[in-house]
């Protein structure tokens, strides 16, 4: 059972963690022209660096079962309903804080190099800092309402940054799509909040505070909890790109690559997982919802991995890989292994950010080329990028002693231990596919002979230190981040001890170590098969990559065209909706609505036309009217007397 007695301490420092990036936003918004591009970028990086330093300090001070609180002021005070604008750091938030500010800081540094030639550099950093602010708001909030503000804020920043190069229509459309799809999920999310607050309120507890909610959660009936968690999960599917709302994330790759790394891989898309972990006391009481989450997570992991097998755009592969990895996290959350889910969020942040930044380095070197068929052999030209990319690829594939190995195996083990053998099998196959598509990418980009065109080839160079250093930092994280959560048969998990006061013990340690080792070996075998398949098909000769594309079977085409999900959604939802809108815009609005308004106007006008005649503008006519009126009064009063 989860204990609810935490050592709560007031801690005024907390508010500065989100505030400093916001201050940098203000500074860069108003004075960036005076500061110049370089200084503005430095201000942005320094702000996130300061937040990182503060987060580390807070993390250092925080006991595992402690909660730091900083109440800034009362935001809403209406009757017995009260919401504070206040921040809270507990074990879970501390982890998220370090991910957001740590990976965020590294990516900020990288952006100095990546966006260095861009005219909109200061605008970019303003958006990026604003994103950090909202993300910190999201993870540090101590109530659902403030979390929702952060939730919507990061969505806004995501939209702004996807459409960052707005002169290209495709980018603007991709931004729109992300925004609209997220709106659908958020609609469910806010309905869930409403239901939660009114249902508890009707029983006398008006609150959105997490600790209070946890205390009073037994007031809710199981049916209500089921509905609430379902609605909240709808929000999570939107933000974290799960079936059926995952379609926006691959398109979101239209944004600059650091954005893909920070927002669409490491932090924002994991907000759904964070939200479920934050409300674990609610979800733990809804077994139906949990199993739905697990199934959707596993289905998404599998489905997205099959799409990633055949994509040729370097960033699209990573995007579908992210969707797939997020599926793993939801699979873990769905089997009530919240610690494992957050652990995968943590390790995934490192290796996926590293992969995205590495792909950015490649794209940068090839002057904007993203098609993997026009790459190859880059290993010789960009050694640092290659080695870091290799490490991150090993990590995501789950090679032993890398971060992904620990977290993915933990998730699979939890699923198996939870009794969901089918889910475990899906995860296992997905692990093999992950290894295949990642090594396929590695071989296509870095090995073989260079297939870049002359222009790109002339442009080829290793990225400057400002971009390679972040890669190295993240690559180191891709290995060692996982060591915190090693299984019992190695040196044991510090991770579980850290999160245990929050999520409670009993996250499957009773199972025999032998079974666990056996399962791990099975996973490794599947991964090895995946790697070998990738090597056999793409590793030996560069030619085959081009030859195999095109003449392939039905499955290949299905996967290559992403199962036509976009087209299906287009036919099922977008077209009927736009047809409906067009009907209203072209018939109902001009004919019926405008007709009514104009009808009233012309009726009034017709009436007035009768009386308009007497207003001739001639003073003498008015004077005559005056006379007639006066005489009439005179006759009337004289007649009375």
């Amino acid at each position, binding site marked *: 059972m989860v204990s609810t007695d935490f050592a709560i301490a007031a801690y005024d420092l907390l508010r500065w963690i989100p505030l400093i990036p916001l201050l940098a936003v203000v500074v860069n918004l108003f004075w960036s022209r005076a500061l110049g591009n370089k200084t503005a970028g430095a201000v942005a990086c320094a702000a996130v660096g300061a937040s990182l330093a503060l987060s580390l300090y807070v993390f250092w001070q925080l006991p595992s079962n402690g909660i730091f609180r900083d109440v800034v002021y009362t935001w809403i005070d209406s009757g017995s309903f009260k919401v504070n604008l206040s921040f809270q750091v507990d074990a879970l938030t501390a982890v998220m804080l370090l991910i957001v500010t740590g990976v965020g800081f590294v990516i900020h540094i990288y952006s100095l190099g990546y966006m260095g030639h861009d005219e909109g550099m200061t605008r970019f950093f303003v958006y990026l800092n604003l994103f950090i602010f909202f993300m910190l708001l999201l993870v540090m909030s101590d109530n659902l309402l403030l979390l929702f503000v952060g939730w919507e804020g990061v969505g806004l920043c995501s939209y702004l940054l996807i459409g960052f190069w707005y002169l290209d229509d495709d980018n603007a459309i991709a931004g729109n799509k992300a925004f609209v799809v997220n709106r659908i999920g958020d609609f469910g999310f806010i309905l869930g909040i409403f239901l939660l607050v009114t249902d508890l309120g009707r029983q006398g507890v008006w609150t959105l505070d997490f600790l209070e909610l946890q205390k009073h959660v037994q007031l809710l009936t199981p049916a209500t909890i089921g509905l609430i968690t379902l609605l909240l999960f709808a929000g999570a599917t939107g933000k974290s790109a799960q079936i059926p709302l995952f379609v926006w994330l691959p398109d979101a790759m239209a944004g600059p690559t650091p954005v893909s790394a920070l927002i669409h891989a490491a932090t924002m898309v994991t907000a759904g997982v964070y939200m479920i972990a934050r409300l674990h006391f609610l979800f733990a009481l809804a077994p139906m919802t949990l199993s739905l989450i697990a199934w959707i997570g596993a289905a998404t992991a599998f489905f997205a991995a099959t799409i990633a097998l055949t994509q040729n755009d370097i960033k699209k592969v990573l995007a579908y890989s992210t969707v797939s990895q997020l599926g793993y996290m939801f699979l873990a959350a769905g089997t009530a292994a919240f610690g494992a889910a957050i652990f995968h969020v943590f390790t995934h942040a490192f290796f996926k950010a590293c992969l995205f930044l590495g792909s950015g380095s490649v794209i940068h070197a090839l002057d904007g080329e993203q098609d993997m068929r026009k790459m190859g052999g880059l290993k010789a030209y960009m050694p640092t990028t290659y080695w870091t990319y290799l490490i991150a690829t090993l990590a995501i594939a789950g090679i032993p002693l890398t971060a992904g190995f620990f977290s993915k195996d933990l998730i699979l083990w939890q699923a198996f231990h939870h009794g969901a053998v089918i889910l475990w099998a899906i995860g296992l196959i997905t692990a093999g596919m992950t290894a295949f598509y990642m090594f396929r990418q590695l071989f296509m980009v870095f090995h073989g002979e260079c297939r870049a065109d002359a222009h790109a080839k002339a442009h080829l160079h290793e990225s400057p230190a400002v971009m390679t250093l972040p890669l190295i930092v993240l690559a180191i994280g891709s290995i060692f981040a996982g060591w915190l959560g090693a299984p019992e048969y190695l040196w044991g998990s510090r991770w579980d001890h850290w999160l245990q006061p929050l999520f409670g013990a009993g996250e499957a340690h009773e199972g025999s170590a032998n079974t666990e080792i056996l399962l791990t070996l099975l996973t490794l075998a599947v991964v090895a098969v995946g790697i070998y398949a990738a090597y056999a098909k793409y590793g030996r000769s560069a030619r085959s990559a081009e030859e195999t594309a095109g003449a392939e079977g039905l499955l290949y085409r299905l996967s290559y065209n992403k199962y036509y999900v976009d087209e299906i959604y287009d036919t099922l939802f977008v077209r009927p909706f736009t047809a409906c809108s067009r009907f209203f815009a072209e018939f109902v609005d001009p004919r019926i609505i405008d007709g009514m308004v104009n009808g009233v106007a012309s009726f009034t006008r017709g009436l007035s036309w009768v009386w*308009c005649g007497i*207003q*001739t*503008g*001639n003073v*003498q006519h008015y*004077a005559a009217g005056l*006379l007639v009126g006066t005489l009439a009064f005179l006759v009337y009063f004289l007649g009375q007397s």
Partner: protein
Amino acid sequence: MVPLNYYLILAAVVFAIGVIGVLIRRNLIVILMSIELMLNAVNLTFIAFSRYLGSMAGQVAVFFVMAVAAAEAIIGLAIIISVFRQRQTLDPQEMQLLKW
């Protein structure tokens, strides 16, 4: 002594002439003059009653009316001059812009 009624009848006739002048004449100056007629018809009534009732109040009122009439004539003539400069006519039928 001339009976009061005679004065009143004369004043009424003069007032009626003024009213008709205001209503039917096609020249602003003549209309202004007709207004003067109406004012003076009223003055005549005031004086007659003042004499008949032996009160000075009527005569005081007459002085007020005269002062106001003088001011009115000045302003009226000034407007008429500027209207004429603008439009080269004094016919009120040519001045019907202020309507729907």
